[in-house]
Each structure stands twice: as structure tokens, then as C-alpha cells.
């Protein structure tokens, strides 16, 4: 007989939440590393991915594999367009990172409003029928949550390999270190950055789809998703792709164990308290870049 302790379920919940935060942090960090500004639209892009999935799956009745491909590419494309037509011109003008931050806030507001206009502000979920349940050491995990964990492993490994072994990855790392010098040695930084934003946004789209299946979608959830990604990144070390993954899991554990004794509504406050503690005590994060 299994014990009816709550601990295994808490650990499972922490790992699941941590995986989602890690996904958000992966994309966010990737973009931050090359562009060096807080892209506050990142969470909204994730939500956009989720809603494109909703449209393809429920309204057009496409199969899951096709719908998710369209949603992921759609999120990536959205990120690409913002980079191309907003962030890039601003950077070319040598605008401060605050200007970029505020512009991304504008983009966030626009995405949120457009989603609410098309899909209404109602809460909607992607999951259709009941999904399979797995029991692991006394914790219950759904099929979707298993997918969440698999995706974060697959995407992190793919990203790590790309960064380490491909020419594209080496160019990204060069831009992370110094954009100007990279340009001088002949890297087409503009094109690389556009691609990075595309990939980062596409990863956000993956996160959005998984969240849509796991807990459901709401147009206004972008800001909270973004903040989770940002907090995970800062805890792990901003701009450090792997640090963000670790940070995501730390955030997942702190949040879920934090609400063990108090009500679940305090989750956001706990997350932000963690952020402020880290900003004060160790602003460079656990893993310095």
C-alpha cells in the first residue's frame, strides 16, 4: 500500500510547474541573451500560441500534430515580426533598453486585446476527452503533464546541442558575448537575432499549447506567464540558457511547497518574493554568465 502522504504529489506538481517555467525561461533567456532587453511580450506570445492551437484544433478540426505545428510556427512568426518591425528599428536607433521594454509592453497589450476580441475573455481549455492518468510513487500525473516534462527535456537537449555544435549556435554565443565585435568579424547579427527571436518565440508557443491542455487558456494570463519565465531566468542567471531551466524548477518547487500550508492564491506573491530576494541577495543568479 502506498502512503497517503501529500509529499509525492507536491513534488510532482513542482516538477510539472517547473517544467513549464523552464520552457518559458528557455525562450526568454535565448532572446535576452542576444537582444539584452526584457521582452515583456514573451508571455503573450506563449498565450497566442495556445490560442492558435485552439483555433486550429476546435474550429478547423485539424489533427493534433498539424495544429500544434501551425501554432508553434505561428508564435515564432509573431515574435519574428515584432523583432523585424519594432525591436530592430529601435535597436538601430540605439534606443535604451527601457524604450524597448516599454515597446514590448505595448506589444503585450496589443496581443492580449486582439486575443480577447477574437476569442472573448472567457476561460477555455484545449483538452477534449479525459486523458490517461499515471500513478508514480503515490503521485497522480496526467498524460499532458507527462508531455510537458518530455518536451522540456527534448527542447533543452536540442537547444544545448545547437548552441554547442552548429555554426548558428556559435554565432549566437558570439553575439551573446559582444554584438559589435561579432558584426565586425563577419557575422550577420541582424539575421541571427531574427532567427533567435523566432526560435525563442516558437518555444514560448510550445509552452502556451501545453498550458492550454494542462490548465486552460485566458487572454490575460500572458503577464503572469511572462513573470514566471523572467523570475526563473533571474534565479538561474539572466541570459544563461541552462540556468533558466534550473531556475524554472526552483521556482516550481518554491511555489508549490510555499502553498503547502497557506492558500493557493498566494502563488504569485511567493514567486515575486523569490524574485526580490534574488535581486537583492544574488542579482547575477545562481549561474553567472
Amino acid at each position: 500500500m502506498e502512503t497517503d502522504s501529500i509529499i509525492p504529489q507536491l513534488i510532482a506538481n513542482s516538477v510539472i510547474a517547473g517544467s513549464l517555467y523552464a520552457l518559458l525561461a528557455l525562450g526568454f533567456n535565448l532572446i535576452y541573451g542576444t537582444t539584452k532587453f526584457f521582452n515583456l511580450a514573451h508571455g503573450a506570445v506563449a498565450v497566442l500560441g495556445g490560442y492558435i492551437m485552439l483555433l486550429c484544433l476546435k474550429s478547423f478540426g485539424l489533427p493534433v500534430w498539424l495544429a500544434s505545428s501551425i501554432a508553434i510556427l505561428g508564435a515564432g512568426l509573431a515574435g519574428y515580426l515584432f523583432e523585424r518591425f519594432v525591436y530592430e528599428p529601435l535597436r538601430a536607433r540605439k534606443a535604451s533598453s527601457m524604450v524597448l521594454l516599454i515597446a514590448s509592453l505595448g506589444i503585450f497589450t496589443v496581443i492580449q486585446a486582439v486575443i480577447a476580441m477574437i476569442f472573448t475573455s472567457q476561460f477555455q481549455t484545449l483538452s477534449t476527452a479525459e486523458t490517461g492518468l499515471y500513478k508514480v510513487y503515490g503521485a497522480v500525473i496526467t498524460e499532458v503533464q507527462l508531455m510537458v516534462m518530455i518536451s522540456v527535456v527534448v527542447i533543452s537537449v536540442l537547444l544545448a546541442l545547437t548552441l554547442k555544435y552548429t555554426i548558428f549556435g556559435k554565432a549566437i554565443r558570439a553575439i551573446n558575448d559582444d554584438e559589435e565585435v561579432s558584426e565586425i568579424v563577419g557575422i550577420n547579427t541582424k539575421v541571427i537575432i531574427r532567427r533567435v527571436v523566432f526560435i525563442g518565440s516558437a518555444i514560448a508557443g510550445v509552452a502556451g499549447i501545453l498550458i492550454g491542455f494542462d490548465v486552460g487558456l485566458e487572454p490575460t494570463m500572458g503577464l503572469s506567464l511572462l513573470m514566471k519565465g523572467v523570475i526563473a531566468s533571474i534565479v538561474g542567471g539572466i541570459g544563461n540558457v541552462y540556468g533558466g531551466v534550473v531556475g524554472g524548477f526552483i521556482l516550481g518547487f518554491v511555489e508549490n511547497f510555499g502553498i503547502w500550508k497557506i492558500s493557493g492564491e498566494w502563488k504569485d506573491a511567493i514567486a515575486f518574493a523569490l524574485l526580490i530576494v534574488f535581486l537583492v541577495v544574488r542579482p547575477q543568479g545562481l549561474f553567472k554568465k
Partner: protein
Amino acid sequence: MEYLIHIAVLISIYSILGISLDLVLGFTGLLSVTHAAFYGLGAYATAILLTSFGMNFFLAVLLGIIVSGVIALGFGIVLSRFRDDFYALASMGFNTIVFSVFLNWQSVTRGPLGIPGIDRPSLFGFEFSENIFFLILCVVFATAVYFISRFITNSSFGRVLLAIRENEEAISVFGYNTVFYKLLIFVISAMMASVAGALYATYVTYIDPSSFSLSESIFILAMIIVGGLSNHRGAILGAVFVILLPEVLRFVGFPTDIAAQMRQLTYGVLLIAFMLYRPKGLVGKYEL
């Protein structure tokens, strides 16, 4: 006529918010995204003191100012370690925490239910229940905030703030304790915001946490960026602009639900457009 008074009351309240945030953002260069927290603290303090203790409005405002000031002091001490985008991020954290307290400290704030039945202010037996009198009260407060802010920014204290904005290291070399200056202006700004909150609470007579979320802070930020930073008139112009805009959209004839989203959409587009083509805002004197 009632309609015009309503618009004017809103513009006065948002002018107070805009002018006070501009002291921190426009004049001192600190990208604070937590103004709605102090706005909410003022509103909740006043609402609770009026409904549960039957206190006089003006006394409640004063206590609300003190509460906001003390909390701003605590936040400000932490925030003084950061600058630019990290400052923005940490301040967003504070807004979220205060919002969570409004939402979850149910025994005091009644959580998502909000606090209904807040009385209109009264002074020496005279009650500001007519909207026109309430408007006069708002305008008096807004004018006071305007002149206090102008006094601050024209004083030597204000010049140090400008210097901090332009080059903090340089001014600290001259022996100015920049942390003290940044802290003081942050606290003053928070106190002003709490006055706006008190007026809002007694005007609509009902408050709930949703009016004081991070989105509201972003809204106030967008307002003064559109109007123009580092200029008190810019803040007022911004308030007029963002309050009138949705009314115009309403006259165009969108259904209510879509109109609310159209408003958000317009603010977003404005923010992007201003950042791209006119980062100074309409009449701003400072570019981020």
C-alpha cells in the same frame, strides 16, 4: 452635464496619478511600474476607515497617505539598489504582492468581493454627494498636487533629482546622497497616489482589487509616456488623452465588450508608435 462632470472627475484623479508618477519616472529617471499599488493602498485605507470606523474622509485620507508613505519607504529601500530595467522588474514584483494582499487578505479587504457602500466625503456637515461638488474637491486636490510637484521640481531638491536622472555617479561625487533623494521622491509620489486612490474610492463608492493590478500601473505609465515625461502639463495632457479616447471610441459605436478591448488595443499601439516615432511623448522634455 453629469456625463461631462464624470469625465472631468476621472481626468482630475488620473492627473494626480500622472503628475506623481512623473516625479519618479520623468524627473528622476526611475522606471517605476508599481504606482497602482499606492493608488490602491490609498483607496483601501480610505474605504476601510470610512466603512468600518466611520471616520471623517479627510482624516482617512491623511492616514492613507501615511500608510502609503511607510510602505513606499520599505519598497523604496529595496528598489534603491536597482536601476533601469531591473528597477522596473522589481517594482512590478511589489505591485503584484500588494495586489495579492488586496485579493487574499479577505478578513480586511473582503478579497474579490470588494468593499461596497463607501460614503462620499463630508466636511463640517457639508456632504460632497452632488457630483459637481465632488468635482470641485477633486480639482482642489489635483491643483494642490500640481503646485506641490512644481514647487518640488523647481527647488534645489528637484535639480538634484534631474542630476540623478542624467548621471547618478557624477552627482554623488559632489557629495549628494543619491539614495536618500531617490527614496524621498518615491515616498512623496506614493503619498500623492494614495490621495488619488481615496478620491476614486469615495467617487465610485465601491472598490475591488481589479482596479489596482499591474495592468493599471502599466496604464498610468502609458498615460504619462503619451503625454510626455518630465513635464507636469504632459502628465495632465496624457490623462485627458487616455480618458477621452475610450469615450470617443464609444461614440464610434463599438459594442461594450469590444470597446473595452479596442481601448486596450489603442493604448498598446500608441505605446509602440510613440516608442518608435516620438519617444518624448506629446510635450515631454525627457527621452527614456
